[in-house]
């Protein structure tokens, strides 16, 4: 993976930089020993590793501001980091950059049931927010699979999703306010406990910006009351087409389930052999439909979904009759990644989104690619919103297999774009999909995005080498070519 060339002049000043950072963040907050920095050398995209120049773990927003201001003034690159659970290499260090870890920002600041909000420091875990309000019957809706470990600050950076997105939205639909620090040290508050930001929706731009625009130091999210009832159906289909038809028919009936997940045969088998959830082994596609809400509604909709499934050719249907049984239905799906990890030394988890109706075509083409690249693939699919997670099985110890897996993954993502979808639904571009961005966007599109970065970080010091395949200087991006008096459309109506 090509990363920005380390700046030799910065590396030469390392000792001076470490001292300057220690003056801002005293004590153990600055880590400069190689062995101690080792835990920061990668994130959940473990194929890539790089020791940072130094790690800084500030305690306060003021320290974050001073660290960024210093780095901005002397031209040092900064990689922000939460829990390091990014699947796209978003927190991959740079040899000449600091890691700015927000792990010490781990407190819940305010719980406000009257306004239905929680304000937390960015290092609080996603599940930590739900846990803080669960005793009152509330929860925070976005639930990425890494929710035990991933932080709410990282969720903002990645606009994290989860299995309940279709009904409850992604992070961006559930965050109300943030405090953030710009590279120049400016501390800015966006939004709050009210429902909409004033002025430009910079909160919306920050969410999903992969740590390239600013460092989040506080987050206010909305919390929801837990549904009265949750029940799930486990539905087996003889083909992915009939499974896909069923998903479409459920939505066409006006039903938006809390969760709707599909697995293909390899994923079903891997999961079943791992957790023994009682999944049918003779089906080509397995659908979990979870209905949540008031008791009367769930009772009504379970019957509706069952009828729809039968019309779509379901060959097996189970309906959860207890909370335990519902959890068992989910156990296999939730363990799908580790289950695949059991049957293969390594796997790559991809993350494209496609228009749902393209699923059969995409699965067929993926099977062809599997033959071509000589690697197996298992699929789990957030069926409601078209977010596909192909798991490519490989063995890093076999020469060439990592490369083959990456090539296979790239082919899948290009296919997603080709059928009208996108490169990433919830894992982010990071370094992993950076060089594929040209398949989805033109140079004009990408340059415009980079110009927005220039408004936040004109020296391009915040998390460079991520998201954009080419780095341009802001001065270069700012140039305009104006052709005076040219009117190629002389027939443009003028009144």
């Amino acid at each position, binding site marked *: 993976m090509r990363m920005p060339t380390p700046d030799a002049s910065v590396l030469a000043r390392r000792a001076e930089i470490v001292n300057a950072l220690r003056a801002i963040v005293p004590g153990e907050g600055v880590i400069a020993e190689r062995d101690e920095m080792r835990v920061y050398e990668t994130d959940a995209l473990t194929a890539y590793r790089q020791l940072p120049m130094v790690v800084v773990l500030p305690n306060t927003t003021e320290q974050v501001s001073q660290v960024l201001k210093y780095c901005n003034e002397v031209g040092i690159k900064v990689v922000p980091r939460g829990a390091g659970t990014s699947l796209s290499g978003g927190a991959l260090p740079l040899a000449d950059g600091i890691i700015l870890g927000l792990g010490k920002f781990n407190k819940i600041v305010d719980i406000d049931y009257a306004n239905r909000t929680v304000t937390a420091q960015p290092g609080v875990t996603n599940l930590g927010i739900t846990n803080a309000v669960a005793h009152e019957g509330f929860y925070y809706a976005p639930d990425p699979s890494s929710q035990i470990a991933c932080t709410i600050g990282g969720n903002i950076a990645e606009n994290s999703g989860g299995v309940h997105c279709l009904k409850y939205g992604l992070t961006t639909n559930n965050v109300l306010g943030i405090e953030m620090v710009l590279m120049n040290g400016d501390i800015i508050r966006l939004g709050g406990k009210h429902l909409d930001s004033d002025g430009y929706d910079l909160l919306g731009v920050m969410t999903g910006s992969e740590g390239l625009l600013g460092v989040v130091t506080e987050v206010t999210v909305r919390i929801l009351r837990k549904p009265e009832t949750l029940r799930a159906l486990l539905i087996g289909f003889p083909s992915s087409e009939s499974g896909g038809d069923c998903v479409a028919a459920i939505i066409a009936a006006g039903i938006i389930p809390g969760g709707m997940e599909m697995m293909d045969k390899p994923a079903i088998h891997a999961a079943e052999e791992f957790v023994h959830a009682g999944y049918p082994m003779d089906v080509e596609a397995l659908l979990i439909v979870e209905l949540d809400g008031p008791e009367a509604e769930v009772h009504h909709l379970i019957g509706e979904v069952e009828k729809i499934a039968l019309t779509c050719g379901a060959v097996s249907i189970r309906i959860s009759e207890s909370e335990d049984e519902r959890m068992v239905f989910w156990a296999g799906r939730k363990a799908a990644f580790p289950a695949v990890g059991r049957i293969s030394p390594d796997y790559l988890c991809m993350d494209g989104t496609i228009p749902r109706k393209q699923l059969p075509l995409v699965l067929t083409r993926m099977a062809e690619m599997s033959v071509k690249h000589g690697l197996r693939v298992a699929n789990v699919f957030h069926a409601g*919103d078209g977010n596909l997670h192909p798991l490519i099985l490989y063995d890093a110890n076999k020469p060439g297999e990592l490369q083959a897996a990456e090539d296979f993954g790239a082919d899948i993502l290009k296919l997603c774009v080709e059928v009208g979808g996108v490169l990433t639904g919830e894992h982010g571009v990071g370094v992993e999909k950076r060089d594929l961005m040209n398949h989805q966007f033109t140079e004009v599109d990408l340059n415009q995005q980079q110009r927005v970065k220039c408004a936040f970080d004109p020296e391009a010091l915040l998390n460079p080498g991520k998201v954009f395949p080419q780095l341009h200087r802001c001065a270069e991006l700012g140039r305009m070519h104006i052709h005076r008096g040219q009117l190629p459309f002389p027939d443009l109506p003028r009144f």
Partner: protein
Amino acid sequence: MTTHSNKSVLKPADADQALEAVRWAISEETPLELVGKGSKRKLGRPFQATHTLDLSDLTGVTLYEPEELVLSARAGTPLAELEALLAENRQQFAFEPTDFGPLLGGEAGKQTIGGVVSCNLAGPRRVKAGAARDHFLGFQAISGRGEAFKAGGRVVKNVTGYDLSKLIAGSYGTLTVLTEVTLKVLPAPEDTRTVLIRALDDATAIRVMALALQSPYEVAGAAHVPASLAGALGVEEVAGGAATAIRLEGFGPSIEYRAGKLRDLLGGFGTVEFLDRQPSLVFWAALRDVKPFVSTPERLVWRLSVPPADGARVVADIKGRLPGAEAYFDWGGGLVWLAIEPGADGAGQAAIRGAIGLSGGHATLVRAPDTIRASADVFQPQQAPLAALSARVKETLDPKRIFNPGRMYAGV
């Protein structure tokens, strides 16, 4: 050359012509007023523009796949046309956009989808379904650099690149010329009903709405209208006393069940009544479109966004400072529609923004004569670092300040 508000009008027939018009304006360094059907033309600060770029000929649905919950249309397509198409498929834009036409002295039903998105509109369902920004998946646009570009996509779950759709939603046409927009659509509810609790004061109403919104009964609207304004909504059943309204939507059996649960939960606060489907639809549309203030066009109308639990406190504070002020509440108290007397000093901005104060939130002067909107801060003034950042963002998309310059903030 015909005139339209004393400005010459450029009316492109398609996105290519719009691009040429923008390139011409850039080369002439002449500002453009961007309009669709003009229903929100009086929203924002008055600004100087020698030419109008009329986008109302950029019409037509370019993609609608009901089972994929997605619709794309050219930016000048009338909202009403899209809503009719969605209704045929029992779907809707769940964010329920406000129609500002009548409030601002125009007709109802005129606005375009581009205008709806540009002003990030949201109706009473905001508490459950979000605003236009939450449903805005992607767009094609022309930048103030004279380049056609796109962002986002047609799928709901997409984190590829910056979410520029959010930036454009609510930018009031100051950043780009939208030419095509893609939105998420959702099933329309099978049925709807409203639970009314009568004769509550503002503070109690806020508590009652909080209880409803904290409940698991999937409230799709929570509003409170004081007695003085209840009659102006045009719903016979509501006139004659303060009404705190909790909207339920969904499948028949579910509504029946939840209505009973809410009656049990809230019955201790006041008399509980129910509005059936038809009066319910009329009630929430009137509330959404600020009907209580349409018939008194001389009054200034403010829109306040505050933490919901603070709504009654903020309004009581304002009433103490501005005699004659009247208000009603949506979004469980988080959205306050406020009318004040036309002579108020500085359009009441000091009193109103002072009352919001430390609660956090903001106030927008929605209806006032041009002269007042030219001198008052129509949008909430921002702290210096945020104002500077917003100005830099404007610079990236519209460096020559061609698009609606100064409509939100001077110099932006």
